[in-house]
């Protein structure tokens, strides 16, 4: 059941993003930016948390989940360290993905060349 929900919700988020991109003729990069911001807003409205409960990876893997992680990290930081905690909490919560993506970009570029 968890697998089905992850597939359906994750797929639905991507389908919505594709529909918005096509219908409004957006640049895909703009859609990616909007998705993260939308996830952050939904998260602060306590709407994204329930989606994560239902869909697990289906909600955290797409980019709105990245916005959700930033907001939850900031709010968690705020409860512990006030304003400074809020500032520090966002990237702290997102640090694993960012570090992996950046290091992968660096190390893979040493050994691979673009295809095609």
């Amino acid at each position: 059941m968890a697998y089905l929900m992850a597939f359906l919700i994750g797929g639905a988020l991507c389908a919505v993003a594709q529909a918005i991109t096509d219908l409004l003729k957006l640049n895909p990069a703009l859609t990616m930016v909007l998705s993260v911001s939308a996830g952050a807003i939904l998260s602060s409205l306590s709407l994204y948390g329930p989606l994560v409960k239902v869909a697990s990876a289906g909600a955290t893997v797409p980019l709105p989940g990245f916005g959700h992680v930033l907001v939850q990290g900031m709010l968690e930081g705020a409860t512990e360290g006030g304003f400074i905690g809020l500032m520090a909490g966002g990237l702290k919560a997102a640090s694993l993905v960012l570090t992996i993506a950046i290091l992968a970009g660096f190390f893979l570029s040493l050994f691979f060349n673009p295809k095609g």
Partner: protein
Amino acid sequence: MGESMKTKQQQAYQQLANQSAPPRPVVRNVVCAFIVGGSICLIGQLFWSFLMSRGISPKQTAAMVSGFIALLGAVLTAIGVYDELGRFGGMGAALPVSGFANSIVSAALEFKREGMILGMASKMFVIAGPVIVYGLATAFIVSLIQYAIGAVVK
């Protein structure tokens, strides 16, 4: 590049190109995005269930799953598979964090020829940069509002 930065000629060309381009098959694109995006999330969920069964905390699990999918996207990009997936799946490949990693790795490989500082290391953020900047800015604003009105609830 903003609309205002385009010359008249470019605008005229863009208009002509838009007119003569075939209409995008929206339904087909949406279905492909659904299948590809859903499948990537399904792979993430397999890892998620495995981690949870090992007794790892939900928060740590979520972070590790996203990290794993990002790594998967990065490696598939380097061997030239992910761009094919992107051509087929559109936002289904771009929206998961693997697409975020793809935007970094493909730009890093692409701009390596312009040098390791101002090429690879700088240009790898051409898409990831805006995502981080606007994501962080939005998260900061909404979090600050919530913090200011004292409504910090989990």
